[in-house]
């Protein structure tokens, strides 16, 4: 039973990641492979604050979001000057820099050893100390993130984002401050992703840099693209599919190292096949074509 709950908790955490990346990549058209960096900042802020200052879950969340928001401004900055695949390469650079800081700043992050013993989340004196309670917490935040992004993209603000995605110059000619929107979107998306990191750190109670590599970023963008960028239900379905389907490998009785490789091969092939036969994703509205 705990196994099933574990899968559901993972889906909830990835839901936060995909809706926040969808806001950036799907609705605003800024394809980013740096999302694991925001996720990692949330997780590390949580781990460090709760171990050194015994802060609670909500305080960690706020500090993580502020940190990720600042990173969001920095990552968004190149998008003001460069476009499309060059921007992807820039986000790729930021992802690598954040990863190498997590991995190499040993005095702060303990580097590859990771940070063990993160306390469980505690909300108003109530410990979230088993899978059931954690699932409720994770689903609560996943739901709130989903509703928040839905509200945002369906508002006039969201229409400007879609206008930037479709035609940046046109949006500018209507008097919209395109640069400000791009930065805001990265701040909001990054802060949301850090909430996923916060939940993850409290859930697994041990984090190390390998959870926040470029491969994690590629996985999150694959979930968005396979599900369908620019719709909200699509990426959530994508997240569920990419979390659940590889679990089937577990039941075939393969050794875990083989299963890990096969899982990655599955993600990769699925991404290639989707690009070939359904580039707009399972239920997407926007197909990255220009």
């Amino acid at each position: 039973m705990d196994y099933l709950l574990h899968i559901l908790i993972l889906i909830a955490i990835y839901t936060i990641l995909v809706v926040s990346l969808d806001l950036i990549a799907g609705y605003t058209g800024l394809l980013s492979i740096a999302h694991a960096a925001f996720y990692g900042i949330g997780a590390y802020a949580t781990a460090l604050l709760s171990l050194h200052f015994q802060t609670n879950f909500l305080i960690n969340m706020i500090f993580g979001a502020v940190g990720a928001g600042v990173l969001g401004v920095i990552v968004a900055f190149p998008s003001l000057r460069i476009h499309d695949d060059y921007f992807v390469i820039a986000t790729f650079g930021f992802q690598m820099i954040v990863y190498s800081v997590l991995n190499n700043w040993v005095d702060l992050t303990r580097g590859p050893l990771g940070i063990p013993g993160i306390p469980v989340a505690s909300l108003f004196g109530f410990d979230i100390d088993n899978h059931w309670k954690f699932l409720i917490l994770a689903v609560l935040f996943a739901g709130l993130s989903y509703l928040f992004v839905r509200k945002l993209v369906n508002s006039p603000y969201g229409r400007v984002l879609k206008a930037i995605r479709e035609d940046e110059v046109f949006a500018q000619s209507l008097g919209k401050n395109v640069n400000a929107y791009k930065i805001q979107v990265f701040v909001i998306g990054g802060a949301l992703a850090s909430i996923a990191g916060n939940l993850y750190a409290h859930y697994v109670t041990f984090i190390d840099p390998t959870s926040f590599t470029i491969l994690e970023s590629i996985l999150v963008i694959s979930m968005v693209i396979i599900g369908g960028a620019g719709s909200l239900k699509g990426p959530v379905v994508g997240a569920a599919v990419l979390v659940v389907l590889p679990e089937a490998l577990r039941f075939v009785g393969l050794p875990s190292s083989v299963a890990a490789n096969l899982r990655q091969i599955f993600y990769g092939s699925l991404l290639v096949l989707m690009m070939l036969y359904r580039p707009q994703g399972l239920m997407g509205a926007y197909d990255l074509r220009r």
Partner: protein
Amino acid sequence: MLPQLLVNGLIAGSVYALVALGFGLIYSTTRFFHFAHGAVYAAGAYLTYACWLSGLSLYAAIPLAIIGTAILGALLDIGVYRPLRQKGASSLILLLASLGLFTVIQNLISLVFGDDTKTIRGGAVTEGLPIFGARITPIQIAIIIVSALLILLCWVLMKKTKIGKAMRAVANDPELARVIGIESDRVILFTFALGSALAAVAAILISLDTDMTPMMGFYALLMGVVAVIAGGVGSIPGAALGGLLVGMAQHLGVWKIPTQWQDTIVFVILIFFLLFRPQGFLGKAVKKAAV
């Protein structure tokens, strides 16, 4: 200390230059970032290892592996990229597909060969020859010479031969190239084979000097991408200089900065170039479509 760092930078830089050259040639004819190039590079090293394991001498294994890698590159184009091009896919779609291919190939390698370090070095580790107060092994000298020769050859190929001119024509304007009767699909196929062969050479040279792991391709690709962007996309001397810049920055940085940060320096260079000089130091200004 300094001479040794310069030599190390030169060795690393020559390998990055080769990776950057292959990656840059493919980018300039197809206009998308072929991330799977990193996995193709690792495949080059592992093909050599597989041939060598099956009992061939290295002199037979290396050419076979280079040819095999060229075929792999060509197959990626025929199987995935060409159909995507025919559907009019954008460069972002091609990039995402190449990320998928990268993941698949790299994991296939680690599935077949395991994640541990493999080596094709024969014999004991020997002390290098002393030159100008630095030490350099014969294989490291070979790395520098082979890379320099290949870069020169490619430059001649691009400037003087018919296929080279066709490649530049397709890079410059695929539509116009078609109009004058250049079969762009064949030219692109050739570019993939050539670029992949160059990657294989770089990977084999590195594995003769150190070792191989399935993750090696990712690392080499990162350095290659930075080298291409710093040097200027589509320029052969640019790729060579970019590779040297990255290698030197990495190794000279160690002089003042702790070793573990040497890769971070490279990514800071990347961001710097993307922000302030996206065309690189030798490239022509990127044309952004007018309104």
